[in-house]
């Protein structure tokens, strides 16, 4: 068949690893959220189980596992049980298409008496040429999980919460996808690798057909499209149903929104989906506006040459470069995730009409203006 068994194995294993990464990140994030909230509010938070309370989530998970099954009367069983499974899908599918580091080159080697390689493994689940369009498409499927949960559990709070959630999600999806048009105009490609490659080195921009360089700033997208960055970040809060946009589960009004009737592991699965949204949003923010896995002023090629000079072989140097770059991305993502948690205790919740007004009457026009201004600016800047 011409398909290399070794390569296929690695590629399949990558899927599992990336999915497990998302699932594993959730307990850490929940711990961070609870400890962070406690820190901001000047209290202790979970600190009993294990060092710093790190084992708390393990204990919670075990407790969740041993909960009694529950199905409300009149509930549509199929929808009720399918909804949490569906809620897992968009986040993981989107995360797998974001590059987590530069590709690893593996030099040819001999295994079991057979000549293998050379290979290039990308640090992502699958490389899709249309990157961001795929992510937008997949994350727009997120509404189904909510609607199925809301309808399936045959409860008023759930139905209202689901309708609110999906109306909010679709409203902010407009601002989200429109704010990305600005950055696509600047880079002229959907491909994440090309976008990241264009963000390396010092800040370089065209003006009246002449190239200018500002040597003390990295060449990040945020300097080309600051308004787009702010709009994108704000609408991801709404997409992930986080405060100040957590209307779907406003405790004071709707008990818990669409997952009112859920408990145990089923609720945890909704949580995983929600945190998956946050992780994807942070990774996208880093990729589009903050150089992705790139370290400011240092290109991956430089890192690799450095490791070569230290006496590492091709494979080892490449793997180490990928590791270092991946850590850079991880730092950025962690920073944005912390902002997500921070904002939760800084801003109060919106009212529903304010939320819709903000989405449709402020953010949409601003995003549109951003597109027009960027287009005109590009035209002016590149004309001699």
């Amino acid at each position, binding site marked *: 068949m011409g398909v290399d068994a070794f*390569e296929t194995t690695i*590629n*399949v294993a990558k*899927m*599992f690893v990336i*999915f497990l990464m998302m699932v594993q990140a959730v307990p850490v994030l929940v711990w961070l959220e609870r400890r962070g909230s406690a820190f901001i509010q000047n209290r202790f938070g979970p600190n009993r189980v294990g060092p710093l309370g790190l084992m708390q989530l393990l204990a919670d998970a075990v407790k969740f*596992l*041993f*909960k*009694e*099954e529950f*199905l*409300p009367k*009149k*509930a549509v069983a199929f929808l009720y*049980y399918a909804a*949490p*499974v569906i809620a*897992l899908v968009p986040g*993981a*599918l989107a995360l*797998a298409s974001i590059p987590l580091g530069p590709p690893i080159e593996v030099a040819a080697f001999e295994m079991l008496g057979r000549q293998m390689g050379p290979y290039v493994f990308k640090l992502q*689940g699958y490389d*899709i040429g249309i990157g961001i*369009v795929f992510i937008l498409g997949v994350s727009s499927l997120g509404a189904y999980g909510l609607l199925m949960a809301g309808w399936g559990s*045959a*409860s*008023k709070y*759930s*139905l209202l919460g689901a*309708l609110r959630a999906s*109306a909010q999600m*679709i*409203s902010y*999806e*407009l601002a989200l*996808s*429109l704010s990305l*048009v600005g950055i696509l*105009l*600047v880079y*002229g*490609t959907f491909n994440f690798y090309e976008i990241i490659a264009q963000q390396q080195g010092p800040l370089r921009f065209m003006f009246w057909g002449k190239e200018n360089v500002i040597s003390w700033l990295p060449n990040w997208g945020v300097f080309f499209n600051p308004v787009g960055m702010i709009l994108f970040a704000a609408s991801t809060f709404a997409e992930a149903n986080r405060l100040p946009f957590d209307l779907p589960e406003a405790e004071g009004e709707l*008990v818990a929104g669409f997952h*009112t*009737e859920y408990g*145990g*592991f*089923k609720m945890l699965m909704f949580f995983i989906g929600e945190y998956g949204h946050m992780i994807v949003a942070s990774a996208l923010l880093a990729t589009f506006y903050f150089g992705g896995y790139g370290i400011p002023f240092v290109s991956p090629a430089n890192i690799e040459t450095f490791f070569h000079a230290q006496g590492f072989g091709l494979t080892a140097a490449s793997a180490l470069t990928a590791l270092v770059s991946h850590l850079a991305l991880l730092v950025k993502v962690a920073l944005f995730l912390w902002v997500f948690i921070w904002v939760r205790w800084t801003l109060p919740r919106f009212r529903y*009409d304010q939320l*819709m*007004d903000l989405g*449709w009457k402020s953010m*949409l026009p601003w995003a*549109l203006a951003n*597109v*027009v201004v960027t*287009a005109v600016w*590009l*035209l002016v800047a590149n004309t001699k």
Partner: protein
Amino acid sequence: MNALFAVILLAIIIITFGVFLLVVSGRLGPKRQHSAVKDMPYESGLPGTDTKDTKVSVKFYLTAILFIIFDIEIVFMYPWAVTYLDSVKAGAGIYLLGAMGVFILLFVIGLIWEIKSKALEWD
């Protein structure tokens, strides 16, 4: 391995994992015990009323309709956005900007109309 197969594979992995979790947590938990109160949907402790009477604002579906229309307009901007820089460098930027300018103008007219006609008003 092509990307389409990879996407399908990952989707299958996720769904299998989810179903596995459902089954495991269903098996491990205590035996389900029915009672009239427990099986009732939660309504803050008040006696539940029939869900058929739930009145939902028609605003929700109006929002969804407007979302479809604006979403398509934004989707049309995506191919334009990727090809714009190339065209600007090739000297055809004015033409593309004009083509999209008319489209954006129609978009703005629609948006202003919706705002003026109070279709986006939630009260």
